């Protein structure tokens, strides 16, 4: 039986829609994943090797142990939001003559394959190799490593349990976070040292091997709680994690209603964005795009030439818009036929998309105005990039979007879901991105940077003034390509 489960697990991963895209994109993504792993590996080794130099006054092993308690607490919070608990996929096995206990063990062991169980190993193993084994025996190192590993896994199962209890109530996590912050403050001001407790506990595993019983007991305990919980009711409708269903009201906004037919179209688009996991993730990730500037602006090297700042400027006010406009037709792939067959005014349809795209860009721009604190030139650059985004990039992206004929399944997956995105589509985006830089370069190189910035702004203004003409070109292309698009969208 276990053989079957493992084989199914493997096939599920191998055949998941994530891999069903074309080779080029796979290679590119594979390369990025490889880079991230390599960075984590190198980072972990460097940190592990030099740990004792960072805290020259403390015993390095005890110091590391003192941080573990906070790591586990943070880990729990992050897991709560990010870790996926795979329970739903048991449905096809429930009616088959398979022992319930086997199904439950399978469900629980599945959670072990989470990324969050592997991530800490990148630092824990180097610490074990370079620090713990330097001061202690090999046996002690193993005991320490296994204790930490068991605690990581305990955290995993604890999360599975907690997530089922509190998924509908994320406030609990907020309270937990506040308590944690409080504890850290107590620790910081030396009122009560939880890190000291952590240090004593984890160091004791090294000094007394029999204490490894404790993490084993904790791990068994959380596993058994989960097992009991699932055994008491392995019903799909109960183990499915229920989130409180709230019907969003934003899309029924009074103002939108006054816009008549256009308003109805906007409402549909907003509902589309707010009621799918994948699109919601994009909205949630927007703050990250906006904060991108904090990473670059303080560093002098990026401030030298404006070329790079223009690139960031396009990205900051355009990040959200790009995600929307570029796939605005594929988002609707599941009902694209309905759009074509119903009495939908395609010109209006396109205009709604344009309006939403530029609203997204506008909001992003206004939110990033505080970047002027890094220099008024940054605000200027961001402003012309914003003009370029709403005047040119928005229309350009809509035009390119008509060439996207891959069906997109919005219901499934969220972060790192590239289903329905084609490599070709990514590649054509680059020129759209780089255009303002190319415009700027001849001015920048001839020592007239402000001229270049001005021209970018003018291009944006021209696009904005003549947007009707340009949207007509997009419309023509949409009408020409609608059969190809609809056919592609129908293909599952």
């Amino acid at each position, binding site marked *: *039986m276990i053989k*079957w489960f493992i084989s*199914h697990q493997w*096939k*599920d991963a191998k*055949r*998941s829609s994530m891999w069903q895209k074309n080779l080029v994109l796979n290679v590119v993504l594979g390369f990025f994943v490889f880079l991230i792993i390599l960075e984590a590996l190198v980072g972990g080794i460097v940190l592990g090797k030099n740990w004792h130099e960072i805290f020259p006054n403390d015993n390095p092993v005890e110091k590391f142990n003192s941080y573990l308690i906070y790591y586990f607490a943070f880990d729990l919070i992050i897991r709560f939001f990010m870790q996926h608990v795979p329970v739903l996929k048991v*449905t*096809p*096995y*429930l*009616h*088959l*003559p*398979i*022992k*319930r206990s086997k199904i439950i063990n399978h469900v629980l062991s599945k959670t072990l394959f989470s990324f969050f169980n592997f991530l800490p190993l990148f630092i824990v193993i180097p610490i074990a190799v370079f620090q713990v084994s330097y001061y202690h025996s090999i046996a002690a190192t193993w005991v320490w490593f296994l204790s930490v590993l068991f605690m990581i896994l305990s955290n995993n199962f604890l999360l599975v349990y907690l997530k089922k209890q509190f998924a509908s109530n994320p406030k609990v996590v907020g309270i937990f976070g506040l308590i944690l912050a409080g504890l850290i403050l107590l620790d910081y001001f030396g009122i009560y040292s939880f890190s000291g407790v952590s240090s004593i506990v984890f160091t004791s595993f090294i000094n007394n091997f029999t204490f490894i019983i404790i993490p084993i007991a904790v791990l068994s305990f959380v596993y058994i709680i989960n097992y009991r919980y699932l055994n008491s*009711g392995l*019903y*799909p*409708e*109960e183990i499915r994690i229920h989130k409180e269903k709230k019907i969003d009201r934003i899309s029924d906004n009074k103002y939108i209603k006054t816009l008549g037919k256009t308003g109805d179209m906007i409402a549909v688009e907003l509902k589309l964005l707010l009621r799918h996991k994948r699109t919601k993730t994009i909205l949630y990730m927007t703050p990250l795009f906006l904060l991108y500037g904090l990473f670059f602006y303080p560093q002098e090297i990026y401030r030298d030439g404006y070329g790079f700042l223009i690139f960031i400027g396009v990205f900051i006010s355009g990040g959200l818009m790009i995600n929307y406009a570029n796939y605005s037709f594929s988002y609707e792939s599941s009902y694209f036929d309905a759009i074509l067959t119903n009495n939908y005014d395609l010109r209006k349809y396109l205009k709604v998309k344009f309006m939403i795209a530029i609203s997204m860009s506008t909001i992003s721009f206004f939110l990033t105005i505080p970047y002027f604190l890094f220099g008024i030139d940054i605000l200027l650059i961001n402003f012309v990039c914003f003009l370029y985004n709403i005047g040119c990039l928005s229309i350009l992206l809509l035009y390119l979007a008509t060439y996207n004929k891959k069906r997109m399944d919005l219901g499934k997956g969220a972060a790192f879901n590239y289903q329905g995105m084609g490599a070709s589509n990514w590649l054509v985006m680059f020129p759209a991105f780089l255009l303002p830089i190319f415009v700027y370069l001849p001015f920048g190189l001839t020592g007239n940077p402000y001229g270049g910035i001005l021209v970018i702004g003018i291009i944006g203004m021209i696009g904005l003034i003549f947007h009707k003409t340009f949207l007509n070109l997009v419309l023509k292309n949409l009408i020409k390509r609608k059969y190809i698009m609809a056919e592609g969208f129908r293909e*599952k």
Partner: protein
Amino acid sequence: MIKVKDLTKAYNSNVVLNIPKLQIKKGESFGLVGNNGAGKTTFFRLILDLIRANTGMVLSKDINVVGNENWKFYTGSYLDEGFLIDFLTPEEYFKFISGINGLSKGDLDEFLKNFEVFFNGEVIGKKKYIRELSSGNQKKVGIAAALMTNPEILVLDEPFNSLDPTTQIRLKKLLKEMQHEKNVTMLISSHDLNQVTEVCDRIVVLHEGNIVHDIQTNKDTLKELEEYFAV
């Protein structure tokens, strides 16, 4: 074979099923009809212990299906695509089902041979995952898998729906054969009054979770049902 006692299921105090008493005898072919939301699928899910009843119980061979798994060994069922492991190919899925039921390679080959006609050359050897099949072909896979183990009880939710006419006729023939030759107890729900009166010798009508008719099929049944539903 199956006894139902005081069975109720409610969602947020909205009762969707209420069956105080019902018995299905061995070898009986039990047809369940009713409009959308009448509780057909809910009833089947309760029989298969896929949802928790608010009160009452379902006994299969006099044993409560909750907390006991013996019924799984003699019950074949297909309610919806959720029963399929959709990232497998049909061949892999059948192999898996035969494996967990302890069938040999020979049994599996024989099964596939017997169902060759039923599949109509559209399921086996197509190098497609189940999720890529049309809903009709997915249904064929699910029904075939339910029949594979020669079950004593067969539970099918709207089996004729989305099948092509040829396959509908073949399935009807297959089900009748199973009734007469193997004395299989069948629970079949359907919206197609024609089909269900043809296959089943007892028809139960559900309305808003309650049994409103319980008829032994005779030549007037179809007319009777049509009159009932023609509101």
